[in-house]
């Protein structure tokens, strides 16, 4: 797995707020009635952090990501990225989708080159960059393949290489590993951490899995049942050997997992009670 970097070397205080979400509320129209999905969200994500968001289904996790991505306009409140108010989607925030959203008519390399091509990077240069990232996610042998020839894990590696190659400082990941099998999923988490430690990206990560959230994050945000509010934000402090999967069975990991599970459980039970 290469050299492991202890977590402490990745943090670099003092940190500025890379993503600033303040007083954010959002609702959808559902059968003629407003359905509030997010209420009064305040969250600062600092440069170089990985922040995961967990919470019961329908708590607005994905909506929050779509708002930060600029796919949806917030109804109230504001989001700023790098000190600038948000204006639609842009290459400063790369998005990784659960269903990969690869371009099926393009080879792996061309998929990874896509953003560079859109931004007018010369062909030779973008091929170099694409080759570098394709190699980084271990798909060099597959760079002329098409998405339909790849497994789920490989497809998601392509999607990740695609956003890394585009050199966005910020990555928004919407349950990216949810449709992978359990083993591939854990490996992908480790790979993501490796990439993160090499590049120092700021990552907002949506997941259903408490385990995943704790393993990959510097902070975990637990949301309440709908309308989603921030219930609690938990700093993740784990043993220094961060990228070793054995960290998953360390006492620190298990202790914090207990805390987060309790919080999420509470919300799921509350949601179920309200629906009765």
């Amino acid at each position, binding site marked *: 797995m290469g050299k492991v970097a202890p977590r402490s070397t990745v943090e670099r205080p003092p940190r500025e707020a890379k993503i600033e979400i303040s007083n954010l509320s959002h609702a959808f129209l559902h059968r003629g009635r407003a359905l509030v999905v997010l209420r009064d969200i305040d969250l600062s994500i600092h440069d170089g952090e990985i922040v995961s968001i967990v919470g019961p289904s329908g708590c607005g996790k994905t909506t929050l990501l779509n708002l930060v991505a600029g796919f949806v306009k917030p109804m109230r409140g504001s989001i700023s990225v790098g000190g600038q108010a948000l204006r639609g*989607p*842009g290459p400063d925030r790369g998005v990784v989708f659960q269903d990969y959203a690869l*371009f099926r*008519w393009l080879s792996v390399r061309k998929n990874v080159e896509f953003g560079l091509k859109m931004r007018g990077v010369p062909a030779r240069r973008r091929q170099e960059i694409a080759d570098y990232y394709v190699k980084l996610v*271990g798909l060099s042998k597959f760079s002329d393949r098409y998405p339909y020839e790849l*497994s789920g894990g*490989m497809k998601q590696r392509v999607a990740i290489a695609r956003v890394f190659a585009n050199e966005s400082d910020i990555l928004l990941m919407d349950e990216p590993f949810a449709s992978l099998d359990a083993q591939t999923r854990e490996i992908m988490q480790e790979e993501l951490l490796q990439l993160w430690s090499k590049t120092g990206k700021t990552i907002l990560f949506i997941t259903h899995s408490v385990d995943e959230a704790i393993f990959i994050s510097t902070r975990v945000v637990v949301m309440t049942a709908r309308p989603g509010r921030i219930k609690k934000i938990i700093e993740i402090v784990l043993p220094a050997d961060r990228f070793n999967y054995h960290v998953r069975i360390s006492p620190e990991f298990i202790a914090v997992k207990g805390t987060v599970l309790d919080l999420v459980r509470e919300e799921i039970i509350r949601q179920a009670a309200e629906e009765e």
Partner: protein
Amino acid sequence: MHDALLDLDEGSPREDRGPASAMVRFFRVRPTTLVSLASILGLVGIWALLSLGHIVSNRFLASPLEVASEIGTLFREGYINVPFHVHLGYSMMRSLAGLVAAILLGIPLGLLIGHNRIVSAALLPPFAMFRPVPPIALIPLAVLWFGIGEFAKVFLIFLAAFLYITLSVAHGVKEVREALIRAARSLGANDRQLFFHVIFPETLPHIMNAVKVGTAISWAVVVAAELVAAQKGLGYMIMDAATFFRIPDIYVGIVFIGIVGFLLEQLIILCENRFVHWSGK
């Protein structure tokens, strides 16, 4: 670190790809191909039995042998002093002219309707209303407007294929997944790039299919158009042969319409395998 990880992937990428392998796949004999072949032979067998066994009078049904020998005669002597390949050529040229016009106008218009909500709101309802009108119902009108010349026939073919292709392409554009558009946007694509680098290629399988069905439509409509007002063409030949009880010629016409239609479809399927090999996977 990744080589070891790759072994966990269950994906077994296909080795064959590209035009050469499309040919191989096309001509490789599979058990199902044999069944298909047997089915056609069986059909010809039943036909032979019905005609040669006089179960159906030869006033209505020519035997396969008669049809085969008539094909020879038609190629040597032509039908009513017009060589057979001229009849065939006329039908194909009319069909092709209408089809090409339908493709050239229908694909861009379909893309526009699918992409632009206002154009869609304006054009989709009239298109949807015109679409169910069978082209044959418009033959008298076409003759009234444009006379019995080539233009009336080509116009009918064009109209039928154009309506189908336009609607089908528009539908294809509307099928493009929101996630793809979002992905492209957040990778930095502007409106123009989004259209040419995402929406168009993603719609390509629909476009290929629209061309395939449009070709079948144009081939069917040319024969119908020639039944009414023509001096040349397969449709004319069938109609004329029926009028003068040249029974085998009717069947030769029908057989050739079938064969040409089949070959056209296979040609387009080859193109599909080449250009949109990733479709439906």
